[in-house]
């Protein structure tokens, strides 16, 4: 696992393990409206503009080509083979465990371990909660991408949104904007989302992260005391910033909010959300670079990539 799949392993995966039943209905039902892309060599999805009209055709292509990676568009077209006649696109949020700005583990950027993957899972669940509670969106689908998670939204309300609106929803769910000062303590709405993002970050903060944020080192050290952090967390749950303001001072508090905003903005890959013609890894396909399956996740709370996304050939490697 996490080492590249050989061409023989890819062939074995598609012949013996892959099945149409692993492709989610939301893709099978719209095959002929989506563009398909393939990476045959590991250099990126260079084989694009493919039209696949039936499940049997998809099966044939994947089993015979055993691609390094397979992708389908999040967008729907009347002529997908030319990417013409855009009819709409899923709204997608992508959290990549290798790019998390703060981690509980000792992985460096670019690396992934069980802990990072679990953090990515927890985070995408928080994003989904905001979409459900604040935006009343219901058609939410989770996909384990091989090194992170995709959240794909298929409610009719979002399909025709353009990049600018998607960017605004992204800022909202990620906490990418500092709320208005007088409304920071609102129980619901965006300030609640921003507070939740602070709560998640609190346990991951350290001196190094806070260095360069503009917060005086003494104040940063005071905040990082476990007792203070606990009190701050309890107050944030209640919607209060009293201790945080007191410990950091006026200037430090403003710098802290800016630090949170910046870290929040790095959690999700914004390019994926705002691109209305993106191709995404096809659920059920193999992520050959790390030898893991891209899996449609039915129960995100219980999903464990090390149980549900490891191909048989990896288990039998040694």
């Amino acid at each position, binding site marked *: 696992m996490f080492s590249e799949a050989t061409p023989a392993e890819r062939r074995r995966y598609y012949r013996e393990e892959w099945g149409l039943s692993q492709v989610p209905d939301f893709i099978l039902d719209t095959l002929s409206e989506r563009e398909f892309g393939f990476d045959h060599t590991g250099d990126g999805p260079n084989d694009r503009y493919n039209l696949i009209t039936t499940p049997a055709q998809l099966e044939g292509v994947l089993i015979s080509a055993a691609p390094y990676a397979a992708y389908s568009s999040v967008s729907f077209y009347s002529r997908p083979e030319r990417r013409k006649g855009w009819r709409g696109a899923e709204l997608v949020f992508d959290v990549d465990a290798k*790019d998390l*700005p703060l981690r509980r583990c000792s992985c460096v*950027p*670019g690396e992934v371990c069980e802990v990072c993957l679990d953090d990515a899972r927890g985070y995408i669940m928080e994003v989904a909660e905001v979409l459900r*509670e*604040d*935006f*009343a*969106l219901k058609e939410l689908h989770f996909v384990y991408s091989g090194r992170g998670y995709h959240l794909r939204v298929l409610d009719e*309300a979002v399909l025709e*949104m*353009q990049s*600018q*609106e998607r*960017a*605004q*929803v*992204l*800022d*909202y769910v990620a906490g*990418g*904007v500092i*709320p*208005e000062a*007088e*409304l920071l*303590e*609102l*129980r*619901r*709405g*965006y300030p609640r989302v921003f507070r939740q993002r602070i709560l998640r970050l609190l346990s991951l903060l350290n001196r190094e992260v806070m260095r360069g944020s503009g917060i005086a080192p003494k104040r940063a050290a005071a905040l990082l005391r476990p007792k203070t952090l606990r009190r701050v967390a309890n107050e944030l749950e209640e*919607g209060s910033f009293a201790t945080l303001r007191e410990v950091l001072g006026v200037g430090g508090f403003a710098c802290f909010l*800016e630090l949170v905003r*910046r870290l929040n*903005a*790095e959690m999700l890959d*914004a*390019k994926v959300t*705002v691109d209305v013609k993106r191709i995404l890894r096809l659920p059920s396909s193999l992520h050959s670079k790390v030898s893991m399956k891209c899996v449609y996740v039915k129960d995100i709370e219980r999903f464990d990539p090390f149980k549900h996304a490891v191909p048989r050939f990896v288990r039998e490697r040694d």
Partner: protein
Amino acid sequence: MLNTTLLNPFSRRALRCFKGKFSDGAFAEARRKLSGRQGSEPGFEEDAQSFFVLLCAGALRGVSSPAARAAKEVIKKVLASRIWGLLEQRGVDERNLDPELLPMLLEDFTLLPISRAGIEPPPEDLRLLRAKQGEPLLYALPWKELLPALRSRRVSLARLYISRGYVLLTLKQAIACYLESIAERCDEFMRLASVEDPRLEDIAVLLEEVPVSRTSRPVKLGAKRLKEECFPPCIRATLAGVGSGSRNYAITVLLTSFISYARIAPFNAGENARIADFVRDLRVVTEEVLPVIYAAAERCSPPLFEDQPLEKLNINYHLGFGLTEELRLEDSGRSPWYFVPNCEKIRREAPSLCSPDRHCRDVRNPLVYYTRRRYRREE
């Protein structure tokens, strides 16, 4: 029917009055709207057509022109005054407003009194919002109704109170959101408008005389040597070197465009600009622009050209010389000279570069930050 006054120029009934040509009465009514004078009530058809006259005249100068902006401002002002007028006629103030009234007035706008949306915000929230906004929350609007206004960034989702699929609004906010949705439809209309009528030119001239809000005063400065101390934080961060995730974007897209425009054409470069339109000697590119970009690329981790030497060609491409190793003035324009991306885009593509300082307030593009600071210094 509660209301016969036209409050939505894009209602089905109003659109039926747009036949691609306008009556003299419609032009007279458009002039009256522009002057702000009171007059006798126009007939429905004249009234509806006059809105389209304003929009078609604005479109003559382009959708982003001051004339087009003025057309939208005038239309919003007329509609706002009509809505408030109708509410006042019914003796409306905060205490006795029937929340059903506004939704009945505004056609094609799915506004509901909060009570009918089945949402009960916590009392603490209601108190905070009332203290901030000075009036109570009365209305619920499905958030997707705001999409047009979100598209044009006239409304920010993060500044609204959203719960269970609805945006909760005060009376003033509800009217403002309605007017923004109309403004967005004005933009759509102007993008498609193609009416040929010589009388529109006079209206366009009048529109150009309408004062519209500008975000900054115009500045006049020529191209001068770069002043690093006036660079915005994102550019300073890029110059310091960038990590592997954002290297290509930071150097090839952001820094290349910023340094080249800041040095060569800091003001009003215009669409389809070419470096050759501004310089006669390429040494300004080879001796002043490229060394800055290459030095920053070298400071990246790992150095950008070490594993991606082809990015040098890509930089030349972004400068408008096409995919070439050797720069020649006559090749300028072979590819687009990419303009400096806006702050919002930078935040999306490379969030780690964006650490705004106090000068970033009200700035939407790093180049504006640079020119403003330089301008103020020289003042």
